């Protein structure tokens, strides 16, 4: 494995063998609705409460992922997962049932790429043969924990985002497949002093800018080396800020930038500035972006999952919101090794 700055380039070919996605009703109605494996018509996903609903989404995403690779849970070496809830309850309760050695992580909405990066690293270094990386979020569980419960009726400003209901899982190994993971850039915690939990796009944009800039610098690449730069959930507010910040550094990603939070919903779905949450980058990347790679629409993409490390307790103590962004490069396998 190569280390350049904060970027890992994998020595071996690390493949995404399969992926699974499960989403809620609003995501199913959105423009990418057809690309997800499982869609629920009801936000409860057939369960009695919201936490169980989120857990079911993660279980279904993992189940889809393993079924596509024709694997049983005991053939997977490690389960690497995280979500947004306190004590990572979704991941840990899913892990209780999976009985795969578990590494649980928290990086807020950056967890999707954080788990993929760590999983790829383990597979590359030979400490694992097969890993499953999974993340989830649920609109009702997240809104209640980080903002207000819906019943409270608190107003949301237009800068707020809507937490995506869904879960995504990927199986990563060195066995040949059509999508390859070639490098990953681990984010730094960036804090520009923003304090508004209803405007996380603005808070996270500098973290994404830092990761993209360091990634290009570490690998001595330019934006021409990529077909897309995909951010997790900067939304309509954070995306222009990211482009401006990068422009100041002489990096122009305007034409190549896409945000999962803007891709997953139509603007008329009452989602304010766009989608957010761990599942936002996970379900869009593991379905739509992977499909684009497979159909040769794109050859190489850099997915930067952005996370607002928001704690309601810290916000009440007038602290600002630290943010982080982890990036992973996915390529079409036939393209060859690029180191």
């Amino acid at each position, binding site marked *: 494995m190569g280390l350049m700055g904060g970027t890992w380039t994998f020595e071996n070919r690390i493949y995404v063998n399969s992926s699974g996605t499960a989403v809620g009703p609003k995501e199913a109605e959105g423009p990418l609705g057809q690309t997800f494996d499982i869609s629920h018509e009801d*936000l*409860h996903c057939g369960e009695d409460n*919201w936490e169980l609903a989120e857990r079911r989404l993660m279980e279904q995403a993992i189940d889809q992922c393993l079924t596509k690779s024709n694997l049983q849970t005991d053939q997977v070496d490690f389960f690497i997962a995280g979500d947004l809830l306190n004590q990572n309850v979704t991941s840990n309760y899913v892990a209780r049932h999976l009985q795969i050695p578990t590494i649980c992580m928290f990086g807020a909405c950056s967890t999707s790429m954080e788990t993929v990066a760590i999983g790829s690293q383990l597979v590359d270094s030979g400490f694992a043969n097969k890993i499953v990386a999974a993340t989830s979020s649920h609109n*009702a569980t997240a*809104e209640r924990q980080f903002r*207000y419960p*819906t*019943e409270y009726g*608190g*107003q949301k400003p237009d800068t707020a985002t809507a937490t995506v209901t869904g879960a995504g899982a990927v199986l990563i190994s060195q066995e040949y497949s059509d999508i390859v993971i070639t490098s990953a850039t681990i984010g730094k915690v960036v804090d520009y002093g923003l304090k508004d939990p209803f405007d996380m796009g603005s808070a996270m944009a500098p973290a994404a800018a830092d990761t993209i800039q360091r990634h290009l610098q570490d690998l001595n690449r330019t934006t021409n080396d990529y077909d897309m730069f995909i951010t997790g959930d900067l939304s309509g507010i954070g995306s222009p800020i990211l482009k401006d910040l990068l422009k100041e550094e002489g990096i122009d990603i305007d034409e190549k930038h896409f945000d999962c939070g803007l891709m997953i919903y139509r603007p008329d779905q009452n989602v304010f500035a766009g989608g957010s949450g761990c599942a936002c980058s996970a379900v869009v990347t593991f379905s739509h972006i992977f499909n684009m790679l497979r159909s040769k629409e794109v050859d190489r993409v850099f997915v930067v999952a952005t996370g607002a490390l928001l704690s309601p307790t810290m916000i009440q103590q007038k602290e600002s919101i630290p943010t982080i962004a982890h990036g992973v490069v996915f390529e079409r396998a036939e393209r060859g090794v690029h180191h």
Partner: protein
Amino acid sequence: MEYVIAFIAGGCICIIGQLLLDIFKLTPAHVMSSFVVIGAILDGFGIYDRFIEFAGAGATVPITSFGHSLLHGAMKGADEHGFIGIGMGVFELTSAGISSAIVFAFLVAVFFRPKG
């Protein structure tokens, strides 16, 4: 005319609340408790009763009137029972409102599922 005055007076209170949310970034809980305290303070100067005479429901429906009722109850309790009466009377006028909030919240929770 009474309706128009009530509508405008009540609406002005709501505008203040919206400005507190949007410009001063207060949380809904802060706005609500501020209004209760403001209602009580205004009542302490005898202003709120005159406001009610003028605006009717425009003054009694917003949460500020809750503060006004708290103070009235406390003062009445103090008249009748002295210092300890403040505590006895403070929720007297508002007890029907508080009880119904609890009862209806319970009923709604029993019969309905949350939507989001």
